[in-house]
């Protein structure tokens, strides 16, 4: 079988075109595997949800550090009259506030454009975290467990639903810096490794090893061709092994991803108006606007779970000394997030894309340092938009100084259960057997927030 001369043209065609490369055995194997649905050759193949899904994908914006609810989405101007009261020095919202034009929901001037989008959002003001250390709270928000490592929400969705585009990972995390908790926040832990988040680092090579290193592309094709011939002859006698077949297939996917990956990060086809809407300068890859536009492009390309980490390292939202530190961070994310919502809406994608903006906890109603605030887990604000939520609503309420939730408290398990529900997954049925136990994202908890569903 090695006697015929190697024709490069054939190889290239087959690599790019897909299945031509894999006649005979491999396609048989693939077909058989796909029928049995537990495909190890195509482990990320899309799977049907438990019931009709409202959303097909999730974009999670994680504002790490702890965004002050009192100074953003749950402003407490009434506290102004009581400033300095008590031995712990109460401090009201330090920014101006205004009701949103359409819904009347009061939001501070830190997020003027998101405020103008309130009619598309469901704001939850009664979020609760059991932890007020960054690491535990951040890991808890992602995995449901603060102390023991568990798979991340994105890994669970990848496991439950697979993904439609095999040329890109199912779970991608755009993180210029790692958030608190490090790689744990997007780890697949005991779920198979292909469900782990693939980190995207803004810059020249957003996904590691995506750029061919060979001096010319034809050389890489030739290399793949010889490897393929050797692999085919190896596979010939080992017909029972789907892993070997999957490995051969994965080079094809990797080869294609070298092209489709950079394409997803290439804004040259975006029009001026779009760039302007996001507030993006040409050539800029460092801003949060870049992350938001990438999110839309990945959403278009069928990535199941996209996470944007908003400022992983300091300075982040952890404003202990001065609430004014929130200003540049809000300025950097307000316009691009509003643009993302509008952009998806214009393209008819908002209905099937669930956007979640979250942080690990809120900040104290009392002053810390000169004019900052401490960590506060008892209540804080997050918001959702798009796929299946009731737009223009506010869920939950906090007391007059923003210290505790007085109604409709929501914990992280409730949020997870609701996100899974919107994706067509029953959170009590998405389980994975590990070390003698069936594990769930929501452990033994979780209440679906039917009140916020459309």
């Amino acid at each position: 079988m090695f006697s015929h001369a190697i024709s490069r043209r054939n190889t290239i065609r087959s690599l790019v075109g897909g299945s031509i490369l894999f006649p005979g055995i491999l396609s048989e194997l693939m077909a058989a595997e796909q029928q049995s649905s537990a495909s190890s050759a195509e482990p990320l193949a899309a799977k049907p949800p438990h019931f009709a899904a409202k959303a097909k994908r999730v974009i999670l914006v994680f504002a790490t550090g702890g965004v002050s609810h009192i100074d953003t989405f749950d402003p407490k101007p009434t506290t102004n009259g009581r400033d300095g009261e008590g031995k712990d020095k109460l401090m009201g919202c330090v920014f101006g506030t205004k009701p949103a034009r359409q819904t009347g929901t009061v939001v501070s001037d830190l997020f003027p454009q998101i405020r103008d989008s309130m009619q598309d959002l469901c704001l939850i003001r009664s979020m609760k975290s059991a932890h007020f250390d960054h690491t535990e709270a951040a890991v808890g928000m992602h995995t449901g467990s603060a102390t023991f490592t568990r798979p991340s929400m994105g890994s669970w969705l990848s496991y439950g639903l697979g993904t439609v585009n095999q040329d890109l990972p199912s779970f991608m995390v755009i993180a210029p810096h790692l958030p608190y908790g490090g790689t744990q926040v997007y780890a697949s832990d005991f779920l198979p490794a292909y469900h782990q988040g693939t980190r995207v680092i803004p810059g020249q090579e957003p996904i590691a090893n995506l750029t061919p290193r060979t001096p010319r592309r034809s050389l890489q094709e030739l290399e793949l061709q010889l490897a393929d011939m050797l692999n085919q002859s190896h596979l010939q006698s080992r017909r029972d092994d789907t892993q070997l077949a999957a490995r051969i297939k994965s080079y094809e996917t990797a080869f294609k991803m070298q092209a489709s990956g950079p394409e997803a990060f290439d804004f040259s086809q975006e029009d001026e108006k779009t760039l302007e809407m996001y507030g993006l300068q040409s050539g800029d890859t460092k801003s949060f606007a870049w992350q938001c536009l990438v999110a839309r492009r990945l959403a278009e390309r069928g990535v199941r779970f996209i996470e944007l980490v908003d400022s992983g390292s300091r300075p982040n939202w952890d404003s202990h000394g001065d609430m004014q530190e929130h200003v540049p961070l809000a300025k950097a994310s307000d316009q691009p997030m509003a643009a993302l919502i509008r952009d998806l809406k214009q393209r008819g994608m908002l209905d099937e894309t669930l956007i979640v903006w979250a942080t690990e906890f809120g900040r104290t109603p009392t002053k810390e340092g000169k004019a900052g605030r401490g960590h506060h887990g008892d209540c804080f604000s997050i918001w959702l938009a798009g796929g299946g939520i009731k737009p223009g609503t506010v869920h939950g309420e906090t007391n007059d100084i923003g210290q505790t939730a007085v109604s409709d408290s929501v914990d992280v398990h409730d949020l997870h259960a609701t996100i899974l529900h919107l994706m067509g997954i029953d959170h009590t049925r998405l389980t994975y057997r590990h070390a003698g136990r069936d594990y769930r994202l929501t452990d033994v908890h979780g209440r679906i927030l039917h009140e916020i569903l459309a």
Partner: protein
Amino acid sequence: MLRPFIVLNQPLLTAAAATMLVASLTSAEESTTFFRGLNLNGPAVTIDGNVWEASDSVNYICKDNAFEQQSVALVPSTDADRARMIRSSRWGGNRIELTNVPSGTYPIYLYVWEDNNPEIFSILVNGQEVESRFNSGGTGHWKRLGPWYTDSAKERIVLTSQGGAANFSGVEIYRGHHEGIVEPPLAPEKLAFFENRIRPLLIEHCYECHSSTSDDLQAGLLVDSRPTMRRGGASGPAIIPGDVEHSLLIKAIHADDDSQMPPDEKLTASEIADLEHWVASGAADPRSDATRYVRKKIDVEKARQFWSLRPIADPAVPTTVANSSWASNEIDYFILRKLEEQGLQPVVDADERTLIRRVTYDLTGLPPSPEEIHNFLTDDSPMAFERVVDRLLDSPQYGERWGRHWMDLVRYADTAGDNSDYPIPAAYLYRDYIIDSFNADKPYDEFIREQIAGDLLTPVDDADQNENTIATGYIAISRRFGSVTDRYPQHLTIEDSLDNIGRTMLGMTLTCARCHDHKFDPISQEDYYGLYGIFQSSRYPFPGIELDKIPKDFVPLVDDGKPSETLAYAMADAQASDAALQVRGDPKQTAEIIPRKFPDVLGGQMLAQADAHHSGRLQLASWITATDNPLTARVMINRIWQFHFGSGLVKTPSDFGIRGTPPTHPELLDWLASRFIADQWSIKSMHRRMLLSRTYRLNSFDSEPAESAATRRAAVDPSNDLHWRFNRRRLDAESLRDTMLALSGDLDPAMGREPHPFPPADKWEYTQHHPFRDSYETNRRSVYMMSARLNSRPFFTTFDGADRNASTAQRDSSVTTVQSLYLLNDDFVYQQTRRFAERILSESDNDDERIDLAFELTSGHVPLDDQRLATRRWLAQINAELRQEAGADEPKQLALETWSAFARVLFRVNEFLYVD
């Protein structure tokens, strides 16, 4: 010097133990005398019949501030003299130097109290911590801490505290072996009152829900013994003798709301009056033995019917098989019999090149060299394979490979796992201990004993003592959590220790029972807290944490019998005490005290009274390694089998419980476990037994035509549970990296024997905002790479490396696009293939020889003729392609580029990435 002591203010647990205790008390008390009492701020007082000296005594030095607040109500209330002594105290500085103490042994007590907010502090006697992180409680709480057995040095004893602000009220010193209980005999009239009025009342109205015979104990409160009543349940002490006002029981019988007791009907006025009188007059109560409520009545006999809990059998080898000439050793008969039961026969043997590659990776994690392959191929002796096995078992790389398996199981890491991920520079000592232990074929029972309780073993010399100390790094590397030392969640660190012991050594998921009785396995919450007490009584080293950056409590190694400057991250005993059961796993909600013990279903062994002043780790180690423990040998045998054959006889290697899967070959499992114990737990003997079986030599695929028996084998047993063939495996992350380095010639084969280049501890400023994130590169084998808990290396997560936070019993071998991208484009792969190409070019001038060598190095095989031919043509094509590149016309450079491309191909093929 401090000596171990017995804490006798803990309740007595069983009647037998109580009897023993009383006997020892009686004899001990004879030799005990009151030596001195010091009221640190105030006049001379009489306490428990002993006269205490006033604060102007010349028998101590204390420069602390004096403070008094006599209006505070004490909790519990107490007699007037004691109360006056307690409420006047010293604070700030917290140093008391007792003087004029002749040399001898002195049990010391220290009275402390709290005037306002709770404080957490530790007490040190002569610089040694004796009370760790004591919580003073709220306003009015007081405690008589001790006794601490202390030898007077130079006629002085120094008491100090660390941490929060402590109020020192008084010091009470005895001479001899005082055990702390002062219990006058009950007055006859009080005894009669209890027997006639109180006991019947409690039985009638309370026992249904609050006794050891209750069907469903409420609020963790037992009123059927004196100690349990005074200790109380979830809400605190039920009665405080002499203090009617603060006794919860009295409150409850008066209550008109949900808290009313008994809940259905209020007691009569005279019954209430009787109880009040009883409490007010000191609550005399002869029921001195603490009762115990056994929550889950596990039917132990029934539970032991389960396959993994039955005694290990020693079945006869089933020699009556049809194809008996196939079998090489006993293992093969067990395998063959199962196959024949299904009408199957095994496949043919693997060829010799496949076999030597298989066993070399298996035992060393590295590929065989061409010379080793050649020696094996040319050795015609029937002992040829045995000689290979012995050579590999004797090589230091064996310990590096199998030590890594153990490191997976014990979730080894070089950092602590807290929010800032503090480095543990001394952790490598434990890593090296593991590697050395495997190389030395340390008996497995000894290996376990040292890791759990090495510090408590009797060493033969310094080296032995150091080895034993370092071994307890196993417990010490348990995960740390959070950022704080105040309210540090120690229960989670202990849970991590127990979780790992359970999974790794016993194949049990113990920690389900932290919050509730195990839903599936016969493990109760009592079993969990029985083990918990052992680790609550142990001192973990402190690696540093965000809000207290200084490491402490490491254990010095010894040099020439004296402590050296080298510190090990190791364990020691702490103050020994049994643990309280935590309701729903919440450490704030404690219920009854559970004696330290082994789970009932494994024998329920308890600490002998004579051992109660130790943590109990030594006893735990002996319970785990007892030859009649049904799990330990079975679990380890199954692991060895799994690492050799690719999957275990039990497919759930760390869960031998009901949710796990039963063994495919139960008789073989037991036969091997019996041999393991009979061979003095020798792991290397077990390797030889398994590796020299015919089963190990089987081909990894069925080479017979599809129409023949082959299809039947795959159809009957597609997952190869019956071992009709060998299981092909992907190179794990370490083997892949080490092989690339070995083939390029860059591998540094030295064994790691020094710490990682962490910055010095006094420079540590790690916080959760700036956690430890360094990563140190090395060309040593991967087992020696620094591994952090919170920040994993991308290469290892990409290729399914071990979880640094939880026990990994079995590596995944996933196939992902990210892996393929790595092999296509990563810098490391490019560097190594280039170096590999240089090596190939330098070893021969002949292209065919170079091709053969490259194949042999990467896959253990020489290419088929048509493969060689195709490769030569391909090289020519590459050469032509490259010649088009500018600057690539220099012949040497061109050859290097060409052969580098070929090397990249070989590093991507399945024959390289998988071991047949």
